């Protein structure tokens, strides 16, 4: 019995810990500063990515049962490589885990080198350059409601779908949002320009930026958790008024 309890406790406590521990240590080449960007990119790829994504980005499913497997990277371009490294999603410990946002595992120079190497593997899209300043927040909110809010919630606070989590967007930079919309990381659908044009994307990003610090017209936003907590607060306020009224009525009767 005690063993079962201990195992349960370990599973409960260990699960979130494991989810955060999921970054393998980075293997860095010797004499990193002397290498050209192309050499550095290739060597960092060999040390940290090749195990799952295969030689020259051909992908691999052979080690699937132990979580050592990954999709091919030929033709994904600088866009996807930049997104996954910039957000700290990669490298990932186990291919079955959902990648989560972490501190980037590689510094800016290393990232640029690996992104350059992966972009050289095939013909792929470049890193996008969104201009949210040209977008319209109101239009962006409509687009976000249509395309994104089902999973990420209209306040961009993130949410849950069966078997996966939709991350909150409070730390997503404009470039990351632009990349994610076109790539569709993990189980997110990818949106083509027919769905969301580049101009619309600017508006969408303008809304995501706005949603980081929304104007709470009513005052306290209660962490934008939605109607349930707001209703609770209303109830507690109403409850005090109702109880106070009852007490006032009762007291008057006694005095007479």
């Amino acid at each position, binding site marked *: 019995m005690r063993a079962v309890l201990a195992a349960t406790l370990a599973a409960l406590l260990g699960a979130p810990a494991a989810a955060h521990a999921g970054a393998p240590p980075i293997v860095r080449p010797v004499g990193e500063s002397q290498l050209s960007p192309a050499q550095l990119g290739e060597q960092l790829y060999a040390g940290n990515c090749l195990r799952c994504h295969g030689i020259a980005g051909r992908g691999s*499913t052979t080690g699937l049962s132990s979580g050592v497997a990954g999709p091919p990277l030929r033709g994904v371009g600088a866009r996807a490589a930049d997104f996954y490294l910039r957000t700290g999603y990669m490298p990932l410990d186990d*291919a079955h885990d959902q990648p989560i946002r972490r501190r980037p595992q590689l510094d800016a120079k290393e990232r640029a080198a690996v992104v350059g190497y992966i972009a050289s593997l095939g013909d792929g899209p470049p890193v996008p350059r969104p201009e949210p300043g040209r977008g319209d927040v109101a239009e962006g909110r409509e687009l976000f409601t249509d395309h994104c809010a089902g999973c990420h919630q209209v306040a961009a606070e993130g949410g849950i779908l069966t078997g996966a989590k939709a991350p909150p967007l409070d730390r997503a930079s404009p470039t990351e949002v632009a990349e994610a919309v076109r790539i569709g990381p993990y189980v997110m659908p990818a949106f083509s320009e027919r769905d969301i044009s580049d101009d619309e994307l600017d508006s969408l990003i303008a809304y995501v930026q706005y949603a980081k610090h929304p104007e709470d017209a009513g005052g306290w936003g209660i962490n934008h958790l939605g109607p349930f907590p707001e209703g609770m607060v209303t109830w507690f306020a109403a409850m005090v008024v109702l109880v106070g009224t009852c007490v006032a009525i009762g007291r008057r009767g006694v005095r007479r």
Partner: protein
Amino acid sequence: MRFLRRLVGLFVAARTVRELARRPDEEPRIVEPGEPDPRAEAAVIVLLLLAAAAAVLFVVAYALEWSTQVLGGALGASLALVAAALLVVGARLVVTEELAEEYPRTGTPEEQDAVARIVRESGSRFTRKRLLGAAAATAGGALGAALVTPALSLGPALDTSQLNETPWRRGLRLVDRDGRPYTAQDIEDAFYTAFPEGADPKAIGSPIVLVRLDPGELRLPRGRERWAPDGIVAYSKICTHAGCAVALYRNPKFEPAQPDRALVCPCHYSTFDVATGGTVLFGPAGRPLPQLPLMVDAGGDMRAAGGFSGPVGPSWWGVRSS
């Protein structure tokens, strides 16, 4: 003769009942008689009738689809007016006295009788009992009607055949929110919401989701082999559990290690398999998402090839589970 005797018996019985009913007046009172207060009584009657009027306003506002502020205000006002009437009754009309002794246990018939008399005699300040009773009944009836009215919106009670109707017909084009038709090339890796051309997009049977799968991945039920041209499948966007919009699409980028392709409803996480005809993988939904057969015309536009595979939306009586 027998009939006459019965009539006399009935007459005597009626007299006795009346005597019994009158008896309390002849005994000494328990509660001091109170002064009638016609103004307070009039106030109570007015308040109750106002409560009834507010409740009627709620019904009218509901029927005419006025704003929810009016609905809430009317119902709140009605309840507040009833409360005010009760406050006036308690403060001004019921005879009050202070009791220093402990409450006796009311066990025997005599004691119960005494309690009944206390209640009756406490009402000695009421002079227009019938009018008050009528006002209270009006307020109660109107308030009850106001509370029951919204139930009419739950749906058709008797004739459910209209729930089976959808705007989809063979040959109708699939259009987006702005009315632009979808071509087969438009459908890429994302998921798309489409509506029947020229029909009311807000009808429960209108919205569908479109996704493109690898044709080799499809495992549709028998008889639906030709429903998915180029691997494009269409399902009703209305969840079969509680009628929410199925707004989540799980679309793995690395299929061997990630959750399978599925449509997920954000309300209660009913999860539907897009490859097998909308079967339920997880969650409270009791039957598959209805599938819409598709075809691609000569110009490349997407068109419906018929009606849905089953009834759209949450289940009602008369809907079988599959």
